[in-house]
């Protein structure tokens, strides 16, 4: 059999195998193929963790070397001194950045009555068409599917796969992600969805919603919702597009830098509470009903974070 012919046979066999895999994956929701992905995540996690530990200082070095070049260009006479300070500069900058990240997480945890576990990002998705990360905590740490994940700047995403020692998190910018949100100032409610590398999109339930550039968008917690109230999501970047008959939409720039995720918090449980009262609500007949403090208890006992809605799409949150 010549080489070209043999290649064709191998191609046919492997294309067939691929199609069998695709079909089996579609038909076995939560079946053995999902388990295979869990095994892959667990197996790769130690290698990824080691590589990530190596990568971060290297990235810091490159950043600081860039600064060093500009200093040299500006002042040749200080070359020797700059080189002598380089190593000290590298280490203090790295420590300062880590300190800032951890302080933001600590502030976030202290400001909210959440039960959380801290995690480090060990890997990102290999594809340009999916936005997920792998973190170094899993079911052994109390993590379960659908738990919210945050960092100091705001909402990161939610857990979609859990193994004993690691978990995968669907980032808020993934097209499969959606979350109930509201405008922090006017209280207009809606749903924010990811759009990959583009800005996120918030579709407001009310066509006359008064969203405007600069408005802060935060999560909104409905009964059985996945996310607690008030996690910062992003800031409105565009004027509302009211071309839809029943809704209006705006683009939202996320607060979180998804290319530089490091330490994150997984929210294990949070108290359900009424949303804070909205100041100076404009009178609108189509406004959705809102809870006011007198009508709902201010705080109830904590509930476990995940409230999976098995009948809906993976990223859909109600």
């Amino acid at each position, binding site marked *: 059999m010549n080489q070209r012919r043999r*290649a064709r046979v191998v*191609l046919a066999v492997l294309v067939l195998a*691929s199609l*069998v895999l695709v079909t089996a994956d579609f038909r076995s929701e939560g079946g053995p193929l999902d388990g295979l992905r869990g095994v892959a995540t667990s197996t790769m996690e130690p290698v990824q963790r080691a590589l990530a530990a190596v990568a971060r200082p290297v990235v810091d070095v490159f950043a600081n070397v860039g600064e060093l070049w500009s200093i040299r260009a500006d002042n040749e006479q200080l070359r020797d001194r700059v080189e002598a300070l380089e190593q000290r500069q590298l280490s203090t900058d790295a420590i300062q950045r880590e300190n800032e990240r951890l302080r933001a997480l600590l502030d976030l945890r202290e400001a909210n009555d959440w039960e959380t576990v801290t995690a480090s990002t060990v890997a990102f998705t*290999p594809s340009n068409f999916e936005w997920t990360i792998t973190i170094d905590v899993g079911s052994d740490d109390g993590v379960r599917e659908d738990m919210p994940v945050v960092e100091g700047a705001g909402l990161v995403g939610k857990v979609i796969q859990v193994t004993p020692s690691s978990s995968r998190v669907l980032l808020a910018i993934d*097209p499969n992600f959606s979350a109930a949100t509201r405008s922090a100032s006017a209280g207009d409610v809606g749903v924010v969805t990811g759009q990959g590398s583009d800005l996120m999109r918030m579709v407001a339930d009310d066509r006359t919603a008064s969203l405007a550039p600069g408005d802060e968008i935060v999560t909104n917690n409905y009964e059985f919702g996945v996310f607690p109230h008030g996690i910062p999501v992003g800031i409105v970047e565009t004027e509302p597009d009211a071309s839809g008959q029943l809704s209006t939409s705006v683009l939202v720039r996320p607060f979180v830098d998804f290319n530089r995720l490091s330490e994150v918090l997984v929210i294990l449980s949070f108290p359900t509470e009424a949303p804070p009262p909205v100041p100076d609500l404009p009178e609108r007949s189509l406004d959705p009903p809102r809870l006011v403090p007198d009508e709902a208890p201010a705080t109830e006992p904590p509930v476990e974070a995940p409230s999976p809605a098995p009948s809906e799409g993976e*990223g859909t949150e109600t």
Partner: protein
Amino acid sequence: MIGRAFVLALLVVTVAAAQTALLPFVAVAGFRPDLLLLLTIAFAVHDGPESGVRIGFGAGLATDLLLQTSALGVAALTYAVVGYLVGVARPYLATNSLTAPLLLAFGGSTIGALVLGLLSSFLGDAPTDLPLILTVAAFTGVVHTLLIPLVLRLTRGISARFPAEGTAVTR
């Protein structure tokens, strides 16, 4: 053959780990090169269509297992077909020319990223915007064209030590 298969499997796992752990830190505008697709193309350019198909399938399967929202087997199918096409196209270009690997890397990477994006969009949980898919395809094509000489050096080294069966090695 067993030695080559073992080395290639180890290579695919190592590259997959590097792709997920290291490359996010060097992303350009949020996009990253796809090292596993690049590896497939490099072996197809060097060793021919059969190696391209085999390594493409393995590299694609590794990608599929590290994804969560797209169907398992989509990347395996795409990379195997790209490996075959690049390997088949190779003899039609001057094998010793400097530009042939660049053209094959650009064409193979652009088509691979485009097909993977479209299939992931159709078979995944949520559709991906066509402009985003086209942007990723163009980015992947350009970046892989720049990176292919480096990766070809690696594949030459491996194929010299562990030659593929019945392969006319091009140097």
